[in-house]
């Protein structure tokens, strides 16, 4: 045993006296370590990402319940608001600087989370009011409370730049603390997420 104690001949007989095999094994080990590093880079993080495309009260409520629940469970949550979903994050409507179509869109879409319709049986807003009062009776948090809670829990909220621009919604019309981003911002998060939903 002049080569030292790194190889136990009783466990691997013959290896200690065969430098070519040691070299082959070392090479294999290096190769496996490289593969492991590569695979580790591809696995998901403790993240959840949601696209909020809908501007319907019932769907948006589901989105915020999942977001706050996931954040409470220790997940890093990102919400992307796009198209009709941007209405959820509107705080007021200013028509100045908008084109005719953009102004029409602004007047025909909800001005804030408080005036979102329900996806079924809305009946000019009566359905939404009814759902809100039914939820209140059961002591379920309101959408506005859930939005505040999501912010408090550190949920990242991102407004889609392209749909915001198309619809002519100015950044000043949206709630403070909203980041702006595009498809790559969403994919950057969703590709590293365990769960990714389109609502």
């Amino acid at each position, binding site marked *: 045993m002049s080569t030292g104690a790194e190889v136990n001949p009783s466990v691997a007989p013959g290896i200690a006296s065969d430098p070519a095999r040691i070299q082959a094994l070392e090479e294999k080990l290096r190769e496996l370590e490289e593969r492991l590093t590569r695979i580790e880079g591809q696995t998901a993080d*403790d993240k959840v990402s949601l696209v909020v495309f809908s501007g319907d009260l019932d769907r948006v409520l589901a989105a915020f*319940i999942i977001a*706050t*629940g996931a*954040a*409470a*469970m*220790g*997940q890093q949550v990102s919400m992307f608001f796009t198209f009709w979903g941007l209405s959820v994050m509107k705080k007021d409507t200013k028509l100045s600087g908008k084109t005719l179509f953009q102004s029409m869109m602004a007047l025909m879409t909800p001005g804030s989370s408080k005036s979102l319709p329900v996806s079924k049986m809305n009946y000019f807003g009566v359905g939404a009011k009814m759902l809100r009062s039914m939820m209140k009776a*059961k*002591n*379920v*948090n309101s959408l506005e409370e859930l939005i505040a*809670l999501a912010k408090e*829990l550190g949920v990242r909220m991102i407004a889609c730049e392209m749909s915001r621009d198309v619809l002519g919604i100015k950044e000043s019309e949206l709630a403070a603390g909203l980041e702006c981003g595009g498809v790559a911002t969403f994919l950057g998060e969703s590709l590293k997420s365990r769960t990714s939903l389109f609502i």
Partner: protein
Amino acid sequence: MSQAFDKQFDARGMNCPMPLVNARKEIAKIERGQVLKVLATDKGSVADFQGWAKVAKNVQLVAQETETADGTCVYVHYVMRKA
């Protein structure tokens, strides 16, 4: 036969996701190794707390039990802070 605990949080009357969200806030206030007792009337909280313990690395569900007080079912969860 009751489980030992260090802090109690009353989530009775709260609905999904509030028992979980508030329990998460409360558990941050106790030390590692201590146990938080949560009282809830939300039936879904039984599965919710099991899911939380499964996903989060820093909590462990020590015990769960059901009590009946004044005709209403109370779901009791004991969660230990691990990290």
